[in-house]
């Protein structure tokens, strides 16, 4: 074991010096673990804050001191709703955050598998290889968690500017108990270890090299039927819950429909992307051709690249029915106006976090892809293909899935918001600001994704311009 650890250290040092940029992947992985940990801490501490406020309502009710007769009953009426909404946001964000952590663990998997094959050749067992890789990932993840925790501490002043339940967030409220800290750290480390081990078992590492990748079978059309069935179910649900129900039930329904929407999106979107890309391959544009063929070859990977963005679409679609303009609160009771304001703020915060996760995921996937394809990039460069062709191919590769995904997810998001719209028409409404939110979300998602894809340009240049002397 000591030898394995020593070898891990030496290999990590060698990677940092590798001109192909595999060392840069370690830095990318560290940043990704850092971002994932930071956001995990923000989400966990935010949710914890609402739990505290539910548990100790007097502390924040004392701050209300408005003299309003409605306020004393506020905790009974809405305290649990806030916790439910916080848990919904938590559930929405936890999947993409964990996906981001998983992507960090899979960074440069193909290249790493090739290198590990040579270790198998000199006699290391498969178990030792997996163990060594898991240790490497755990070290990276741990460093990322430390960075994430520091970033979280640095973010606290900004979080304190936010206000929920008519009260600014207090630093003390965000302090999680030790067991919650431990739980977040354990989940993040466990995810890093599992993703690494799982990623390596998917690429068979034999002493003679990595098993040749075969063409994946096309995705089944039954995925469409599943989606259609679910849309009908949601429609029926919207009709059924027109009967008056409490906030708890509305929250639970929202949670269920959101979970269903995300599950269905994961099922349907890869099929749709593959179908769209198949149509797109009939082109004379080389960049578009390469991009569409990459999507056809691995639609699940294309989907993974943008799946976090899909979440944004769902949230934005659902949020669109929440009043966002202060003037729209006029006429509402004080309590309702406050709840609406909080829902808007919470949803926008969730949107911002999801956008950050999405952009980081895209940058990570693209960086990994650049390093994995460095030999191909060098070959294309030698053939005289301008770097712009690969850059354009990458733009197509992320933009087509992105726009397709936003289209589906925004539609699903609006569908998700429908039950709320129909059950509480006095609270939820469609307005011009709804359209503005949707448009701003699309623009922000596109710009951030393009920037994330462009962030790998130096890595591409480094891969192509490496001036190493071959053993000629």
């Amino acid at each position: 074991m000591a030898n394995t650890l020593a070898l891990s250290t030496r290999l990590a040092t060698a990677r940092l010096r590798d001109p192909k940029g595999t060392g840069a992947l370690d830095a990318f992985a560290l940043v990704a673990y850092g971002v994932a940990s930071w956001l995990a801490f923000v989400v966990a501490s935010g949710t914890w804050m609402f739990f505290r406020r539910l548990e100790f309502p007097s502390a924040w009710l004392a701050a209300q001191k408005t003299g309003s007769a409605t306020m004393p009953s506020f905790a009974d009426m809405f305290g649990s709703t806030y916790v439910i909404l916080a848990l919904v946001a938590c559930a929405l964000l936890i999947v993409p955050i964990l996906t981001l952590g998983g992507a960090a663990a899979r960074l440069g998997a193909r290249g790493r598998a090739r290198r590990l094959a040579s270790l198998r050749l000199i006699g290391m067992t498969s178990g030792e290889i997996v163990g060594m890789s898991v240790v490497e990932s755990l070290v990276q993840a741990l460093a990322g968690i430390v960075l994430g925790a520091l970033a979280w501490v640095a973010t606290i002043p900004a979080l304190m500017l936010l206000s929920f339940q008519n009260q600014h967030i207090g630093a003390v409220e965000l302090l999680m108990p030790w067991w919650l800290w431990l739980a977040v750290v354990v989940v993040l480390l466990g995810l890093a270890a599992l993703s690494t081990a799982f990623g390596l078992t998917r690429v068979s590492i034999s002493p003679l090299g990595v098993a040749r990748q075969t063409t994946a079978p096309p995705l089944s059309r039954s995925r469409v039927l599943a989606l259609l069935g679910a849309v009908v179910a949601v429609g029926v649900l919207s009709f059924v819950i027109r009967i008056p129900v409490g906030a708890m039930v509305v929250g639970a329904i929202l949670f269920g429909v959101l979970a269903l929407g995300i599950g269905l999106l994961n099922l349907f979107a890869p099929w749709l992307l593959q179908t769209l890309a198949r149509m797109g391959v009939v082109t004379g544009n080389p960049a578009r051709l390469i991009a569409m063929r990459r999507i056809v070859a691995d639609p699940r990977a294309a989907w993974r690249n943008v799946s976090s963005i899909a979440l944004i679409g769902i949230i934005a679609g659902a949020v669109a029915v929440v009043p966002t303009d202060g003037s729209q609160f006029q006429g509402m009771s004080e309590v309702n106006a406050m709840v609406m304001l909080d829902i808007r703020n919470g949803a926008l915060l969730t949107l911002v976090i999801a956008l950050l996760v999405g952009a980081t995921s895209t940058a990570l996937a693209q960086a990994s892809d650049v390093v994995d394809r460095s030999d191909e990039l060098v070959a294309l460069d030698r053939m005289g293909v301008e770097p712009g062709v690969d850059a354009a191919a990458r733009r197509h590769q992320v933009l087509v899935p992105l726009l397709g995904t936003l289209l589906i997810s925004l539609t699903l998001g609006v569908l998700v918001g429908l039950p709320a719209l129909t059950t509480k028409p006095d609270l939820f409404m469609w307005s011009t600001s709804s359209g503005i939110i949707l448009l701003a979300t699309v623009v922000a998602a596109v710009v951030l994704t393009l920037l994330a894809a462009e962030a790998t340009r130096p890595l591409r240049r480094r891969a192509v311009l490496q001036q190493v002397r071959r053993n000629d």
Partner: protein
Amino acid sequence: MNTTSVTPVTGTLSARNLVKRYGSVVALGGVTLDLQPGESVAIMGPSGSGKSTLLHCLSGILPPDEGEVTLGHLPVSQLSDAQRSRLRRDRFGFVFQDGQLIGELPARENVALPLLLDNVPRAEALRRADEWLARLGLESMVGRRPGELSGGQAQRVAIARALVHNPAVIFADEPTGALDQATGHEVMQVLTTTARSTGSTLVVVTHDVHVAHWCGRLIEIRDALVHSDTRQEA
């Protein structure tokens, strides 16, 4: 077939006193040679002799530190990086050791890629790619991706890609390095025959004497210099 019609892109590929250094290591120490149009030339030498560096300088992949490379009257080594890229795309073809095909593209689109980059309409590019693949005995493989081809088949696809735009010069860097001997001979036969039929100059870098015997001229590089330059019967 249209694939046999040769675009008039001839000209002697010349190197004059080429010097290339990697830090303190001198990879080329003043190499001078002329490669005539339609010639097939094997560049041999022990590991570290400078043969791949010579190929990279001749093809404009690397600019020499000293000396010059010309194709006909075109001063290759004085062109900008973008101009050299354009030259490689339009006038040269490349066959690499392990094919270096794009994994997601089927064989016909891999072959058509250089034409598409030159704005040849898709239908025409695919037609010419199919013709080349058929000519190399791969008509039943046009829809297969590189991962579904054997090493020899993949290398033949790479040869078709190198030839599809009728290049003046084909550069092959250890084209049989990843193949068994029988498949390597088959690939060299295809490469030399098709290059001869199109009138392209063929430059093969190899350390395998059996591969070198397929070429009409053998240049041996030792210690960064031309050690010998002999004609032979291919």
